[in-house]
Structures are given as C-alpha cells and as structure tokens.
C-alpha cells in the first residue's frame, strides 16, 4: 500500500544526475556538496517543516559531527572512516540533546534566539578554547576517504564519481528514513504539534518530549552531513560552525520548499550553483547572494511554499480533481476502547472536586467548590456568564492549575499532573472554540486523538505506518460513524462546514476513548436542526461513559442531564436533578437578573 514513487524517482534522478549535469558544467564536487547540504536539510525539514521549530543553530551539530569525525581520523584515534562518521553523528546527537533540552522549553521567537545563540557558542568553542583539537581558524586538513573491504583488497572511494555515489547512497538512505518518520505515528504527532500544539498536548501527547526527540534526530542528520563534508573535501572547514551556515540552511530550505524533505536539496543546488557560476562573472560576481536574498524575501512574502512545495501543490490539486470515492470503512468497532484505568477505586465517583478554587489576583473565579459526578451519568454544569464554568472546566483536566483544592478521577488525584497526563488517565475534552488540526484530514485529526492513549504519552515508533494499527483505525471508523462524518473522512478539516467542525471537535475528544468526557458548549453556534441531531448524538455517547456538559441551551440541558450543578459567581448555588433545579428559587433568581437580596435594585 505504501507509495514508493518518491523514493523511486529520487534514485533514478540521482543515477542520472552525474551523467547529465557534468555536461552542463556542474562538477562532481558541486553535486556532492549539494547532497551533503541535502542531508543536513532533511533533518532540518523534519524539525522546521514538520514540527514547526525554526532553528537557527543547526551549524552547531553540522560542525560537531564534522570535527569529531575529522579529529578521530586525522589524529589516528580511529582507522575506520565509517566508524568515525558514526561516532561524529552520535556526538552531534548528544550535543543536540543538551541544546534541545534547554531550547524546547521555549517556543517561537525564543526558540529561534536560543538556538542561534547556542550555534554561536559552538562556533566560539571551536574557534578558541578547543582550537588545539580543531585547528581553530585553520580547520582540520587531511581527512581520509573511506574504504570498502579489508586489508589489501580494500577499495578506496576516490573523489569524483565514486565519491558522488557514496553521497548519493547516503542521501537516499537518509531520505527513506526521514520519509518513514513522516509517515509514522510519531511523524503524525509532529504534524499535530505544528498545527496546534495546545490541542496535541490536551489529547495526551507529551509535546516537549516529541520536540526534543525531533531536535535530536535533526542533530543526528546534521552530524552525519558534517562528517561527510570533511570526507568529501578531505578538509574540515571551521565555517561549518558559522552563523552563515545555519542561515544558508534556512534560506535554502525556504526557497526549495518547507515540509517536502527534498526541498532543502533543491535550494542547496540553486544556492551552490549560483555561487559557483555567478562568482566567475566579473561584474555580477559579488551580487549572487544579494540576488538570492531578494528571491528569499519575495518568497517569504508571496509564495510561501517554495519550489517543491508549489510543485507538490499542483500535483495535489490534480489528484484531488480525480480523487477516488472514500474507501469503504471497516466494520465499526463497538464504541469505545478505553484503555484500562490504573488503580480505579471501586465505588468512587468518576470525577470529584474538593474545595476547588481559582483566584486571579483579587478575583475569585471559582471559590471553594466541591461536588461529585457519578460514574456513567450525564452531568450538566450551568450558570450565568462569568459564573466560573470555563475556569472550572479547565481545572477538571488540569489545563489550569487551581489555587486551592484538588480534582480526583476515579479516586485518584490528577491535580498538578497537567493536561497531557490527565488525558492519558482518561479525561477527554471538547472545547468551546474548535481546536482542530486544520491542514490535516478529518481522519488524520481523529487518528491523532485515537493514537494518544493507545500509544501512551510518548513513543519513538518511527518505522511503522501511522495507519497500520488496526484497532485505532476501527476506533476512528467508529467515531466517524457516530459523529456522521464518514463521507468527509478524507477531506482537510479546514474545508468542513461549521457544524461538521463542531462534530469533529467532539469526535476528537471521543476518539481518545476517555472515561470522562467534558463537553464545553457543544451546541454553540449550531443551527436548530444541527442542535437537534447533536443532542441525539450526545445522548448516544453518554450511554457508556461519564459525560460532563457545560451548555447555555437550557432545553438541551434539561433533556440530557441526569444531574445539574448550578454555579453562580464562582460558588456552587445548587445541585440536583433537572426537576429540583427547575423548581429552585435561588436558581431562578440568579438567571432572572442576578440580584441578591442585599444588592440594590
């Protein structure tokens, strides 16, 4: 089922390249350097294109891999070039682990600044304190070429065509590995993080660990590329560590196409070819980088996708025009496969709050709230605007940490664990405002959710396919059927109608297989017809799990809920069956004007 077309095209192109481009004036050296930058770029694309982490410090790992490999070889610590490359790669990965550990705590602007700063730190380390080993500004000359075989029969991989094929083989291996990563459950989580980090975390994926893992993977690719740079040039240049290297990588990737894996290589070909050729022309020699800079700025402003991205987009549009009807679904599994809950205490309520409070400065948004939600019931929380419903809801899955008190899930304290752990323990939540992965299909959205508890908070399953886990796919089909989204399964979620998006929002929470499902205004913004059908749907969902609903539609609340909790100004005003609540004088007063006896009319 796996499409191997990109791999096949790549191998064919790399086989043909030396015989075609050598006649067009490109040297083997140029082609080798392009592929080397390409390997560096594949790692960077996984980091930036897939996970959305813009690093300006890749030179640190490129240089580390290069200098460790070169040092080991030139100073005869190790005889085998292959082993030296491997050690250099691992060293870069370990440095990546250290820098990543500090950098992934921060996002966006901070991440870019910190990676840039650590890149510079590595540059200065190479240049001064470590210059006894690295040669400082002179680099390490005399890096040997690798050999195949042993002893007298060993064949050296000479510069020229043999070296080109070494680089090409390495590149293909890296590309295949990277593509496997992008198609794995791990890779799908990376896309989820890029699209909507908060939602990925809320579904139960341990986002920081995924980011760190990807950072290390990118560093490993960079380390290998650095090692190969020394080998192919028989010289390890100090500018591998320079800020310009990191910057060049970013520019090449954006020009070639972010999120395409092959884009950085195309960008590198353009950059290096322009530099090699334009530099020879007397009048424009100095201008080549200016031209590239201008192209880069224009690309960022208007054409976001880069060369390969635009090609892929055209290809996709054509495919979409001739799209086959959605594949028949597997027999839907009896809903839900909820993972067993650890140490669920018998007879404990599904969810319980004890003296829960959240104060924002002097504002007591929620103040000392204790109530219990019976297992298997549908429980509604209502109250006028500003009563504290949303804050309460966020505390129930530890999205917001309470000032005081605690939340218990089946008798186990979850306060302080964070939303990701809470999700793993079995609390799902659909949000008042949709939090979808807009560029992914409906099925992929649900897959991200369904994988969360099935795989646990973090798993490095980079080699299996994301859609190869049968019970997850059945779970998705079940949710698609329940939420009536079956015929929209393969469209990107951003083209869904509003009502469909709402259903997908609820479906994602459902797909995690939660014990307790929190629905924050599930009917908000729906048309009357949609409301009616969604109500039925909620009742279905509520048959075999605990549901907590915040909703302003009182008809729906009184129809669905078995018990109702009424909040008023951060405190619990009343609790009981719908009948109790309807008759409660305090509740009526609260809703009909929010006046208390001591307040002036």
């Amino acid at each position, binding site marked *: 089922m796996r499409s191997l077309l990109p791999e096949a095209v790549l191998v064919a192109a790399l086989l043909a390249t030396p015989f075609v481009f050598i006649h067009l004036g490109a040297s083997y050296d140029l082609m080798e350097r392009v592929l080397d930058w390409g390997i560096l770029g594949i790692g960077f694309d996984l980091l930036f294109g897939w996970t959305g982490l813009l690093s300006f410090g890749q030179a640190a790992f490129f240089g580390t891999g290069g200098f460790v490999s070169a040092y080991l070889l030139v100073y005869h610590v190790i005889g085998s070039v292959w082993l030296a490359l491997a050690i250099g790669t691992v060293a870069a990965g370990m440095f990546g682990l250290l820098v990543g550990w500090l950098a992934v705590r921060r996002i966006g602007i*901070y991440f*870019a600044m910190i990676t840039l700063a650590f890149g510079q730190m590595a540059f200065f380390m190479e240049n*001064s304190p470590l210059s006894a080993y690295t040669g400082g500004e002179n680099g390490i000359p005399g890096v040997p070429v690798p050999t195949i075989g042993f002893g007298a029969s060993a064949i050296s991989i000479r510069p020229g065509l043999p070296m080109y094929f070494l680089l090409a083989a390495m590149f293909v291996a890296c590309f295949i590995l990277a593509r496997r990563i992008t198609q794995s459950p791990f890779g799908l989580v990376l896309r989820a993080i890029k699209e909507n980090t908060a939602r990925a975390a809320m579904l139960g994926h341990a986002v920081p660990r995924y980011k760190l893992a990807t950072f290390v993977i990118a560093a490993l690719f960079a380390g290998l590329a650095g090692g190969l740079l020394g080998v192919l040039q028989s010289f390890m240049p100090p500018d591998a560590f320079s800020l310009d290297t990191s910057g060049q990588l970013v520019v090449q990737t954006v020009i070639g196409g972010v999120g395409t894996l092959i884009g950085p290589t195309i960008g590198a070909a353009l950059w290096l070819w322009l530099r090699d050729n334009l530099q020879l022309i007397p009048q424009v020699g100095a201008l080549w*980088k*200016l031209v590239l*800079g201008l192209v880069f*700025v224009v690309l*960022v402003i208007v054409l*976001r996708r880069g060369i390969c991205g635009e090609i892929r987009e055209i290809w996709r549009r054509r495919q979409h025009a001739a799209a086959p009807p959605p594949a028949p679904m597997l027999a839907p599994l009896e809903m839900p496969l909820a993972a067993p809950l650890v140490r669920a205490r018998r007879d404990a309520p599904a969810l319980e709050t004890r003296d829960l409070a959240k104060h924002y400065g002097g504002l007591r948004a929620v103040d000392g709230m204790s109530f219990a939600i019976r297992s298997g019931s549908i429980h509604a929380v209502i109250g006028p605007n500003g009563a504290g419903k949303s804050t309460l809801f966020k505390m129930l899955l530890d999205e917001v940490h309470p000032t005081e008190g605690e939340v218990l899930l089946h008798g186990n304290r979850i306060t302080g664990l964070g939303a990701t752990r809470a999700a793993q323990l079995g609390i799902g939540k659909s949000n008042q405002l949709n939090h979808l992965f807009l560029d992914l299909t409906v099925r992929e959205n649900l897959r991200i959710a369904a994988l969360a508890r099935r795989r646990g908070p973090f798993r490095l399953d980079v080699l299996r396919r994301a859609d190869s886990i049968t019970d997850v796919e059945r779970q998705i089909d079940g949710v698609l059927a329940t939420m009536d989204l079956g015929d929209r399964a393969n469209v990107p979620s951003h083209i869904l109608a509003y009502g469909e998006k709402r259903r997908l929002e609820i479906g994602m929470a459902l797909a995690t297989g939660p014990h307790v499902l929190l629905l924050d205004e599930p009917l908000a913004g729906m048309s009357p017809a949609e409301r009616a059908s969604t109500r039925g749907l909620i009742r279905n969902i509520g048959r075999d799990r605990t549901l907590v609903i915040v909703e302003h539609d009182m008809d729906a609340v009184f129809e669905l809920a078995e018990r109702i909790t009424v909040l008023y100004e951060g405190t619990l005003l009343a609790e009981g069956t719908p009948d109790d609540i309807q008759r409660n004088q305090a509740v009526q007063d609260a809703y009909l004007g929010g006046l208390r006896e001591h307040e002036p009319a």
Partner: protein
Amino acid sequence: MPSLPLLLSQAFNGLALGSLLALVSSGLTIVLGTLGVLNFAHGAMFMLGTYAMLVVLQATGSWLLAAAVGTLFMLAVGVLVERLVVRLFYRRPPDDQILVTFGIGIVLVESVRAVFGSETQHIATPSWGAGVTRLGFLIYPTYRLELIGIVAVTLLVLYLVLYRTSVGLVVRAGIEDARMVGILGINVRRTFLLVFAIGVAAAGFAGMLYGPLVSITPDLGDSFLVQAFVVIVIGGLGSFPGAVVGGLIAGEIISITSAFNSAYSEVMLYAVMALLLVARPQGLFGTEGRV
C-alpha cells in the same frame, strides 16, 4: 589571577561594550515588545549605521553632521522597511516574521557589500576623543569614556520618550495589549511605524559610535545581533530596563572573562544565558507567561 589595573581596565571595556549592547538591545526590545516582531535585520541596521557614518564623514569631515544625517538616514530606512515589508507581517506567524527580517538582513548586508566591497574600512578616532584620560586609578582611552557618556544620554532620552511622553504611554500600552489600544481609537499602526523607526535608529546610532573602535566590514552586525538576543533573553523579552541592565551584564561578562582567559570570553556569555534559562526562563525583568 589578572592584575588589578587589568581588571579595572577590562571592567571599563565591559562598560563601553555593555552600553553599546544596551542601546542595540533596547532598540530590538521595544520593537519586539510593541510590534511583537523579532527583527533579525537588527544587526544589519547596526552595520548600516556604521557605513552611513563612514560615508558622511568622508564627504564632510564633520562628526556632528555625520551623526545627524546618519540618524535621519536610519529613521528613513526604518520607515521604508516597515512600510514596504514588516507591515505585511503583523498578522503572520512569528516564524514568517523572523524569516522575512532575516532576509532583509541578507539583502542589506549584500547591498552594502555590492557598493563598498568586502574590504575593511576604518574611521579615525575623532579629534575630540583622541588620546587618553587619567582617571587617577586608571588611564583609559578618551573616546571610550565619551562613548559611555553619549550612550547613557541616548538611553536617558529614549527612557524619557518612552516613560514621560504621551507617545511613550501609547507605546507602553501597545506593549501590554496592542489590540486594546487600537480599540480605544488610537492609531496603532502609526505608533508601530514610529517605534520600528526608533528601534532601527537606535541600532544604527550604536553602529555609528562603534565605528572608530573596529575594522568595518559588511558582516559587522552579525555578532551584535546574536549578543543582543542573549541580552534580551537575560533581561526579559520586551523589557526596556531588562535590555539596559542585560546589556551591561553581557558586556561585563565578555570583558571580565577575557581578563582571565580571552578564549572563553564569548563562550561564558552563552553559558550564563543557558544557566539563566534553567533557573529563570522569563529573564531578569520579564514576567512569566509573556510572549
């Protein structure tokens, strides 16, 4: 252990470098705080200031004129870049803003290279800053002392504009919540333009002062850009006092370390940043949860 006079002289060097860093970083930080844009072209602006100074000085020989024309030129560059490019990016994700300003930086550096070449250029120390000054405990180059003074005055002016004028009030409110300021009926876009131009001019002015101290090349601004980032991380994102204090701290770290072992001077700066990231991620003057 280095001798006391060496330590003292390095401490003063740290003050000179630190005050320049403070000026560069405060330009970067008010743009970041107000517009939410991290200007990766800030180092190029610094460099552009140096070259502007160089050109006017060579043409006229007047320092006063060079500083005035150079500052006006930098304001104009700021206005132009904001109107032509940065303005289009206020609603785009931070990564795009970083990429586009990074690209602008490349274009500026390469444009200067195309005009002036990569050869190093020099600006002679001005006559009013020539020689050394005896401080009693230390003999120190006069120009560097004056530089510290000029930067201090510039920072004071910047502070007064930001904290004592109604324009500054709008800017500071914009740092807190630009949308809200817009809702109140204040032309936020015009404030943005002004802030961006001031930020660019601050970097350019620092570049002008730096000119007589170094060999001038088009890549001059790179190291200042990265050091300004470190300053902002240390001081706290978008914080003006943070940029000033952070700048001085960074300058002293580099200079004092260099008195012990010059090989580690820059490395130490990043090591301190790394430590601070672990101990106090929001920076010295930053508030938790911002940006």
